């Protein structure tokens, strides 16, 4: 091996960098002395396939923290400010676990939040439980997360069994309201944890509701061409199509459905990909009349909702989404709990969280009335809304249609699809 000058230098450079990095890394970052600070560790996907959603969660949290800190921080802790630390889970469970360990042990966070991907949330909450650090889950719908018997997990969003239950309740309501009978259902879903979970519940609910399932089609979320799936849908001739999709496939599926001129009475999506801001932009007209179920929508009839959305839009260029709102609310729930706890002791924070009864405040822009956690850490009041995508004069938008009380004034949902 001829050691050319360049290669030697490059080699030494790399070696030196690695040594320096390891040194800094192992000696840790110097902590700042000063007024008390509440450290919150947030483990979310900032790269990889869920990067878009992760970004939304981060932005929402930042907005909440700015507001809280500007308003004086946590008064019962002497005006302590909230400090958000973010870690990229890359949607991988082992990274989530590693970051949780690091946050708890090296950074000394007082609370954790995260992780969006249910597969990452399971083991990460286990880490928090072991150390007794409270973990607030804004959105991660898998039922199991609050059913592990952990004492430190608190989930804001509804469980996925509630989502599916509401989707069917909505369908039944629509049938009644518009005097249209629905008999045949088609289930098309991404073949991951989320999709399969929903599909399993749908099958149960369909049986109970007396519907006929004409198609049960899991598909790979990374598919490059969904025409065969669409063809199957066409062939099965369902009345209503129910979907669980991530962003890329939601767009592809919607466009392909439009291309093949598939005629259905209704399409009900399950949030996620369909709620992603890119979806509406990319699918455009093809998304018209699709129903989607989400935690929240921009036209929810709650004080402060419009203002919060306008502020977020001005800052980040897009509307708040369900995920973002849950993250925003989660931050306010934390603030409320911290105020009541009056201490940075994790056990006290945990106690305060368990006794949360938040009914007002900037965070409560969600469609439901309160945040209260039951014994398993699930927010009992979490509710969902169904929106319809339609253009009523100012471009394609998402309009809340269900429950009826939440429906946007003056709008009648279009059912069945013309």
């Amino acid at each position, binding site marked *: 091996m001829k050691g050319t000058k360049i290669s030697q230098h490059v080699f030494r450079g790399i070696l030196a960098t690695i040594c320096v990095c390891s040194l800094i890394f192992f000696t840790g970052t110097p902590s700042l002395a000063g007024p008390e600070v509440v450290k919150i560790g947030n483990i979310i996907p900032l790269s990889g396939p869920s990067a878009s959603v*992760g*970004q939304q969660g981060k932005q929402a949290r930042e907005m909440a923290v700015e507001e809280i800190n500007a308003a004086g921080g946590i008064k019962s802790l002497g005006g302590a400010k909230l400090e958000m630390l973010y870690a990229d889970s890359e949607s991988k469970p082992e990274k989530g676990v590693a970051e949780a360990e690091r946050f708890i042990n*090296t950074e000394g966070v007082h609370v954790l939040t995260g992780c969006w991907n249910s597969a990452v949330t399971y083991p990460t909450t286990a880490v928090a439980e072991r150390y007794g650090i409270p973990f607030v889950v804004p959105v991660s719908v898998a039922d199991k997360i609050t059913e592990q018997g952990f004492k430190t997990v608190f989930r804001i969003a509804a469980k996925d069994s509630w989502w599916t239950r509401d989707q069917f309740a909505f369908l039944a309501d629509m049938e009644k309201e518009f005097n249209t009978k629905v008999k045949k259902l088609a289930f098309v879903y991404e073949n991951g944890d989320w999709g399969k979970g929903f599909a399993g519940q749908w099958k149960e609910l369909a049986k109970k509701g007396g519907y006929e399932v004409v198609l049960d089609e899991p598909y790979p979320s990374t598919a490059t061409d969904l025409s065969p799936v669409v063809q199957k849908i066409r062939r099965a001739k369902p009345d209503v199509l129910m979907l669980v999709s991530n962003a890329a496939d939601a767009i592809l599926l919607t466009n392909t459905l439009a291309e093949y001129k598939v005629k259905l009475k209704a399409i009900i999506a399950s949030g996620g990909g369909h709620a992603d801001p890119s979806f509406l932009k990319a699918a455009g007209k093809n998304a018209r009349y699709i129903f989607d179920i989400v935690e929240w929508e921009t036209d929810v009839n709650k004080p402060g909702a419009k203002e919060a959305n306008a502020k977020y839009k001005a800052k980040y260029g897009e509307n708040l989404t369900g995920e973002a709102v849950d993250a925003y609310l989660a931050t306010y729930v934390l603030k409320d709990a911290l105020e009541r706890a009056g201490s940075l002791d994790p056990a006290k924070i945990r106690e305060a969280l368990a006794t949360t009864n938040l009914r007002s405040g900037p965070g409560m822009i969600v469609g439901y009335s309160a945040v209260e956690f039951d014994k398993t850490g699930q927010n009992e009041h979490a509710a969902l809304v169904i929106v319809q995508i339609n253009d009523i004069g100012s471009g394609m938008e998402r309009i809340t249609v269900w429950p009826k009380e939440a429906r946007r004034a003056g709008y009648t949902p279009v059912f069945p699809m013309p």
Partner: protein
Amino acid sequence: MGEQMTRQNLQISSLLLVGIITFGLPLVLRSPTYLHILILLYLYAYLTSSWNLVGGFAGVLPLGHAAFVGIGAYSSTILYLQYGISPWLGMIVGGILAAIVGIIIGLPTFKMRGAYFALATIAFGEGIRVMVENIDYLGPFNLNGPRGLQIPPRNVGLTNLMFTTKEPYYYIILIMLVAVLALTYFISRSKLGYYLNAGGEEPEAAMSLGVNVARCKLIAMAMSSFLTALAGTFYAQFTLFIHPKSIISLDLSFEIAFIALIGGRGSIAGPVLGALLLRPVSDFSRIYFGATLPGLHLIIFGTVLVLVMIYQPRGLQEPLTRVYHKLLYRLIPEPAGTE
């Protein structure tokens, strides 16, 4: 002669020193985070060293080893969750299963040339992942498809390979690592190692000399897959959650192979060195940049890969070994007249 013995003594004593430091570290380093990082580091060093048996000694480029990690992890987890069998036993079962699969894979693929072999292993790895993702039940065994399997943290203890603190895990993986390195050392000095080396460089010549190259490669593959599966069980017991995308992923297969290649495959120290140098880079850049500039850590990782391959294609162990030898010779100057 006396001088030579001292040089050897120096090597052995420095090895012992490293051993003492690594075994004694948990007594000094209390923070669970650092232990966690070190455990993962040793795990990767273990994985790359096991990979080395095929990828380094046999001279081929297997890019599907994550499949064996998955086989190990799933075997022990299913046996534990459904039948209450201790993961130690499950580990062995997983290892044997992996070895069998490894031989099945190796039989047809070893006949292929480099690039084809690599692609075939990728196909196997991905094929196994797709199957596990789509199957919920394999006979009586619950694989749970993409939802993965979770091990409830009850009944901790040595029999169940589950602990609440990091230290036991640390020692287990360290012992495993030392064992693999020792095994690699002995193989490299044995006839098998010699045959593998010959078979890797000039298979036709070796075969003409009566070396059953194919059989040697298969033996190496079986060993490699067995050992890799053991790591799978360890990982499952360490993180208590497994699912196909994380355990049987192409990323993992690539990472193992690349760390070994960058460290220097075919050598004993290479894979370990690679893990030692690259894991911190990957973790460090994710920690410090992951939140602010998403994806930057992967850019850094990719750049390191490119640079190292351009300037040190035999792996970083080569210049480092030179430095090590220079140091050795400087401490113990050459005796006059010998060597």
